[in-house]
């Protein structure tokens, strides 16, 4: 060992880099060789366990996309609430301050990760992870676009509620292990609140299940294809309203954010958290907002369906058939486009020709990108679906942010009273009316 260490210390820094790269390359080559040698076996194993592979890939992808999603929603919340407050909001980092949430994320990473004396350290450490994973894992079953989803489970809705309920475990862990009375109050509040609102949340969807006849979210979205009048919100308006309210409470959003009421119990369960552990809570909250918006869209607002049957357009020209002409096209079109778009600038203004050319090139690029996107939107099914889905989802995210900017917080007894005295009977009523309507329609239709 000492020989190796001495050799290593004798090397210059470029030498160490080169040596490191060499070792890395060797290892990778060995790995590749092993993979090539056993490729048949590996492929067989993977092929035999395709669901597991799919799950691992999907989980990784979902875990990765939550970060930019959370950043986007945090920025959106900062900016939208600021505008409602007649403020300007973030405007320093990045264009219109759009990178501020990223910088916040970096700041959270750099801060001290602090565990208070007397805290139950393992539980304290694991609580944010539980909360974050629980909200991330719910994303697995959401169909973003045709064919673009983690798992098409036939019990997707049940899975969703189960995972959503897991959040409360994390919050309770955080509240208990912080060794702080404010955190304890916050944890208990969240337990009471989430468990109470689970019931109307679940019951409000049962009517929908009767209508749809399936629990698979993908199937439900397919059921809502066609005009926007086919969306379930028009058949289950009361159910949709109850779902929206209960989901707000489930995600601990204003006006039901008692768990982290900063003016009462000083951020509740998160009082003692700092650094990235707090960051996990923070991210989880915004991922939750995204998830409940996405689920509302999926269940009641047609998912990735367009609000009207989109005419299927097939381009008359298939690029593959052009052959050598395609190459010529690729060579000529940019030049031609730049010239065409530069012409009006050059004619209408007094600018120099190179300026006009630069502007023309920029405009051509914009048009080209728009054209490619439009082509993708028109002819690639999942792009269109994803766009519609995101559009609808972010409308609901805006709604939640808007509510946060407007409403004060309810009190804990009013919160519980509202759940048990109003939402629960209303959701039961919704269930009975739906069931009766189905029976009546079946009887009349004489199936």
């Amino acid at each position, binding site marked *: 060992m000492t020989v190796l260490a001495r050799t290593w210390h004798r090397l210059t820094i470029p030498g160490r880099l080169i040596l490191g790269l060499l070792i890395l390359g060797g290892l990778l080559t060995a790995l590749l060789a092993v993979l090539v040698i056993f490729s048949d076996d590996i492929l067989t194993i993977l092929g035999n366990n395709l669901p597991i592979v799919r799950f691992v890939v999907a989980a990784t992808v979902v875990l990765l996309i939550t970060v930019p999603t959370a950043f986007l929603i945090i920025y959106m919340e900062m900016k939208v609430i600021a505008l409602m407050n007649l403020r300007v909001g973030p405007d320093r980092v990045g264009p219109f301050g759009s990178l501020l949430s990223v910088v916040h994320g970096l700041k959270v990473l750099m801060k001290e990760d602090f565990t208070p004396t007397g805290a139950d350290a393992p539980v304290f450490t694991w609580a944010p992870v539980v909360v974050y994973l629980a909200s991330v894992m719910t994303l697995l079953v959401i169909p973003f676009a045709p064919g673009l989803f983690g798992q098409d489970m036939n019990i997707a809705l049940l899975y969703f509620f189960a995972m959503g309920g897991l959040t409360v475990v994390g919050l309770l862990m955080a509240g208990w292990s912080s060794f702080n009375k404010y955190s304890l109050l916050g944890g208990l509040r969240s337990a009471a609140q989430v468990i109470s609102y689970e019931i109307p949340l679940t019951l409000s969807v049962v009517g929908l299940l009767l209508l749809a006849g399936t629990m698979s979210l993908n199937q439900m979205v397919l059921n809502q294809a066609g005009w926007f009048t086919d969306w379930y919100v028009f058949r289950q308006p009361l159910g949709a309203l109850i779902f929206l309210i209960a989901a707000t409470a489930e995600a601990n959003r204003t006006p039901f954010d008692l768990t982290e009421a900063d003016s009462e119990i000083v951020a509740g369960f998160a009082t003692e958290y700092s650094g990235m552990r707090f960051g996990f809570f923070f991210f989880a909250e915004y991922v939750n907002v995204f998830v409940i918006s996405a689920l509302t869209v999926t269940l009641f607002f047609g998912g990735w369906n367009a609000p009207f049957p989109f005419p299927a357009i097939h381009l008359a020209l298939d690029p593959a058939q052009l052959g050598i002409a395609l190459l010529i096209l690729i060579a000529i079109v940019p030049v031609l486009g730049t010239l065409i778009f530069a012409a009006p600038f050059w004619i209408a203004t007094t600018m120099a020709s190179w300026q006009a050319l630069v502007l023309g090139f920029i405009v051509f690029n914009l048009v080209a990108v728009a054209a490619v996107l439009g082509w993708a939107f028109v002819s690639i099914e999942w792009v269109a679906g994803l766009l519609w889905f995101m559009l609808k989802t972010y409308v609901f995210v805006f709604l939640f942010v808007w509510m946060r*900017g407007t409403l004060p917080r309810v009190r*804990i007894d009013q919160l519980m009273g509202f759940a048990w005295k109003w939402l629960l009977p209303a959701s039961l009523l919704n269930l009975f009316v739906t069931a009766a309507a189905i029976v009546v329609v079946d009887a009349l239709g004489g199936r």
Partner: protein
Amino acid sequence: MTTTAQRPSADDPRVLLDQQLGVFEPVPPYPPRTEREAEFYSLGDGEMFINMGPQHPSTHGVLRVVLKLNGEEVVDLDPVLGYLHRGVEKLCENADYHQVISQVDPLEYVSSLFCEWSPVMAFEKLLDVEVPRRAEYIRVLAAELNRIASHSLFMGWMALDLGGLTPILWSFIERDEIVEMLASLTGQRMLFNYFRIGGVNGDLNHEFMSRLGDWMTRATEQIEANLALLNENEIFVRRMRGLGVLDRETALRMCVTGPNLRATGVPFDIRRAHPYSIYPELDFDIPTRSEGDCLARYLLRMDEIRQSLRIIDQCLNRMPDGPVMAKLPRLLRPRPGRAYAGIEGPRGQYATYAISDGTDQPFRMRIHDPSFIHLQCVGLLTPGNLVADTMAIMASLDPIMGGVDK
């Protein structure tokens, strides 16, 4: 260590280190000295202490409240004051009469003009000065503007303590316009230092008048628009209605004054009950409400904003011409005597009791502050309610810690 012989103070960090638990129990480390303290610091079955403040976000400054909780229900509470105590009365007794004005300015920093007004009035009584009428009109004008600023801030704080984010910023915009206006009149944004013994420092100027005129044309509209967010909001109204009810008799016994008293149905407003300055000449109403709960206190203050706008309008219409300062010597030596001056501020009675011994410094300077009195009612109104209601009740009584701690 030599320090172990001393009795530890409640704020001594060593007290925290001594406790091996690592959690701070807000129990004082010495035997109780009064019955009430003994009663409060003994826990019943299933009760716990929670220490709120002095760094809690909604204790309006540096108030510390020890809450005794049963679950989320408040059983009892003990406010601990003194984190902002500066000994203003002592400082005033060691400053000459003119310097007192700037010492009392930061007492209630959202309504500084009222803090200045009562000592100035008391000194004028000691000196037997008559204030020019134009100065009185300017005083009323500026003070009513300050009252509106204070009440609109109250609106924002109230909503913020109930969890609403937006109204506080809207009310700060409202306040900022008024404060900028007063800055052009007085020269400062917050601690105006504007009233002088025998008048005011500086006449109305063009900038102030143009800002005021600009604001007056849209003030009503703007305030009503701000109120539209809260006044009809079900969540807000349901949380406030029937909460912290203070009845007429208790309010009088608790020495409550101002909007908090008028919300219980007592039309006690010093501007009418014990008229001073030019208020007898002005035409305005004393809004009262009979419910005495948090919502009544909130709505009453909003009514007062409308009355203040009326007063400002009348002041502008009737503003007489003339000097703004009485003729006084530079060094004031009032003859020995005592004077008391109470005025009606946005929170209640601001009063000063000054004793002169014939020198150029007040011999005794007592400053009576309504926030101090009203904060006492939190202990009366909160038990039996929830933790969240503590903030609502405290916010509805509208204490300013600068005034409470003097």
